[in-house]
């Protein structure tokens, strides 16, 4: 219902030297569905925000124009709906029905028409709960479906989707994709940003790939774009479907066990159910163990237990003498410096683990705590900066990094302490194809040098590329397979 015209569009965030997006020309006919691709930093999210009229004039410098049916976006904002990546920070109200009604109220829809429109929007996305259901009681996939209903309630002519399934487990992502396929009216123009391209392709009829310095790398129907530009796009970091990834199986058989969990179970204080039902797990040197399963099945809790960060409510985690190297008792009783030099943990949210003011100090913390001499610390840090592609950012504040860079830094910071066991929660989240390969190669190298890798993941490619053994959690049967 809305034709999008972008002419010579550019945007530079306040205080930045580089343009997030520049010199972009693009026309999207009414009713077309576009998959927007590009390596990290190519300006995909900036373009979506520009089309939604969310780039405030006082938050940066703008160039060119974006028009919806010939009208500048700033004056046509009520014709646009947008769904963001993070479910937690886009729901506004505590009851589901109220949240869908929020956008209608803001647009001045007469009260008597609001509730019928809310009901219709919830039906369109297949939302199963009552209007009074609490938004906090929803799973991530359900919250994203609700956010979609909120965006669709105002009948937007242009629907923008900024990686709406990125934070979800495969079941939740499928739920949202089904809702997208069924709920969006045929005449609605759609622009979708999505990393999991293969799953998104059935939803679109055009692929647009942004180049790193602005401009288009490729544009056209999916088949032709991937046939004509597949290798070039893959080289630029785009996840081209069917483009092969390296296989990195273990060089030799797994070695001796370093950690053995026997019937470990965990329940949060005051909770009425176990965050992790009793499980057995063995972590061996020279082996990459992948832990999979639906959200809420206890994967992240198992990662914290294996990382020696929390004490099991029942059961025991034993460390091999070889790993403990002089420390007594279970890992959760080890002093912090001793722990980080033996078992490294990488959290799902990298920012939670940043404790220093710049990238170099962040990487140097582990070796410094271990009491290594200065030359040794510098050599370790320089090597890691290089391998992680962060050398140019050595002086940057960790909190200013992009999602992909922050993830690599948090992995590097754990590696710097030279642990023999590395436990990672969703390590490949938000990486483009190039940084993904670099990261997985780094992990494979560690494993082949004798370290044990434990990765909690939803990433099928990671399983295929790196995992030597897979453990499935959540939903019976629980245990190793």
């Amino acid at each position, binding site marked *: 219902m809305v034709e999008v015209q972008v002419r010579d569009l550019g945007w530079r965030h306040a205080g930045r030297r580089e343009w997030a997006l520049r010199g972009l020309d693009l026309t999207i006919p009414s009713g077309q569905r576009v998959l927007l691709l590009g390596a990290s930093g190519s300006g995909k999210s900036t373009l979506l925000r520009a089309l939604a009229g969310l780039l405030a004039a006082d938050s940066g410098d703008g160039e060119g124009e974006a028009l919806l049916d010939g009208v500048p976006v700033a004056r046509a904002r*009520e014709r646009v709906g947008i769904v963001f990546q993070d479910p937690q920070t*886009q729901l*506004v109200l505590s009851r589901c029905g109220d949240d869908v*009604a*929020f*956008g209608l109220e803001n647009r001045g829809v007469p009260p008597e028409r609001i509730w019928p429109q809310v009901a219709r929007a919830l039906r369109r996305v297949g939302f199963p709960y009552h209007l009074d259901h609490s938004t906090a009681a929803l799973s991530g996939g359900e919250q994203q479906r609700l956010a979609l209903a909120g965006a669709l309630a105002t009948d937007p002519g242009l629907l923008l989707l900024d990686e709406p399934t990125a934070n979800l487990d495969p079941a939740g992502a499928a739920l949202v994709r089904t809702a997208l396929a069924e709920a969006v009216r045929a005449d609605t123009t759609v622009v979708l940003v999505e990393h999991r391209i293969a799953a998104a392709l059935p939803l679109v009829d055009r692929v647009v790939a942004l180049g790193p310095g602005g401009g288009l790398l490729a544009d056209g129907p999916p088949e032709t774009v991937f046939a004509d530009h597949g290798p070039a796009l893959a080289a630029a970091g785009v996840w081209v479907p069917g483009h092969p990834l390296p296989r990195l199986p273990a060089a030799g058989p797994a070695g001796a066990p370093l950690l053995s969990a026997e019937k470990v179970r965990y329940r949060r204080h005051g909770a009425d159910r176990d965050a992790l039902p009793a499980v057995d797990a063995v972590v061996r040197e020279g082996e990459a163990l992948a832990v999979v399963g639906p959200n809420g099945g206890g994967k992240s809790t198992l990662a914290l237990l294996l990382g020696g960060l929390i004490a099991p409510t029942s059961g025991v985690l034993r460390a091999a003498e070889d790993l403990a190297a002089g420390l007594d008792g279970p890992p959760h009783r080890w002093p912090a410096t001793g722990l980080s030099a033996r078992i490294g943990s990488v959290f799902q949210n990298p920012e939670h683990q940043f*404790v220093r003011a710049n990238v170099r100090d962040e990487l140097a*913390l582990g070796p410094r705590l271990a009491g290594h001499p200065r030359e040794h610390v510098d050599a370790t840090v320089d090597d890691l900066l290089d391998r992680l592609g962060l050398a140019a950012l050595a002086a940057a504040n960790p909190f200013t990094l992009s999602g992909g860079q922050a993830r690599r830094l948090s992995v590097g910071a754990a590696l710097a302490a030279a642990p023999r066991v590395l436990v990672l929660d969703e390590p490949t989240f938000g990486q483009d194809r190039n940084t993904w390969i670099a990261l997985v190669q780094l992990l494979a190298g560690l494993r082949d040098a004798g370290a044990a890798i434990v990765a909690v993941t939803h990433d099928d490619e990671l399983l295929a590329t790196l995992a030597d053994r897979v453990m499935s959690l959540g939903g019976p049967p629980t245990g190793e397979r």
Partner: protein
Amino acid sequence: MTRRAALTRRNPLARVGAALLFSLPLLSTLDPLTPTLAIAVSIAVAGAFGVSVAALTRRSGPLLLGAVGVLFSVVPFAEPHGQVVAAVGPLEITDGVLVDAVGLGLRVLAVALPGVIVLATMDPTDLADALTQNARLPARFAYGSLAALRLLPLLRSQWQQLVLARRSRGLSPGRNPAAQARSLGGVAFSLLVGAIRDGERLATAMDARGFDAGIARTAARQQRFTGGDWALVAGAAAFAATILMITAGLGM
């Protein structure tokens, strides 16, 4: 589901207004009888606001602690007057000071209890609706605060994550209080950074849904301020006045 108590159906602003009008006049008195009567009235009407006596006791726990705290901090430091009733070491406790202290402690309870009762069954969304529709407060303030309130529970789990994260990085404050304070500061700073980022995301999402875009907002949930609401407010004021007149009549 339990049947909704009679007064929980009243307008949220009327409930808050009634609590304020009932409790604030108590600040003008110093005797122990006024707050005792007020507490008795509060307990008696709690049921009508959908709060059982058991629930009221549970929610008043911190308040009781505060009242006892007042008692213990007034007794040793007030100017002694009246008869000495007890002596603890060098400290002589007089009946005059004791009466003042009990009066102060009871006042803390009496002033806060009506607020505890009306807020126990208050839905924040309903309050925001009433603030914008009946008190004409800007939507930006009312719904902005409401949305921020929704993010609060996230902070708790983030705090736990941050504490574990520092351990994973090899940092532990040990037993040194200065190091513990520094570590706490570090966690608080990271929490703040995360909270600001979450707040920005939420603000962008609200912006994208047309919030505060200069269009006159409509209300999906109508809040009305009716005769019954005025009656509740007037009733609260009348109760407060009656209590004050009784104690004044008794010469206290």
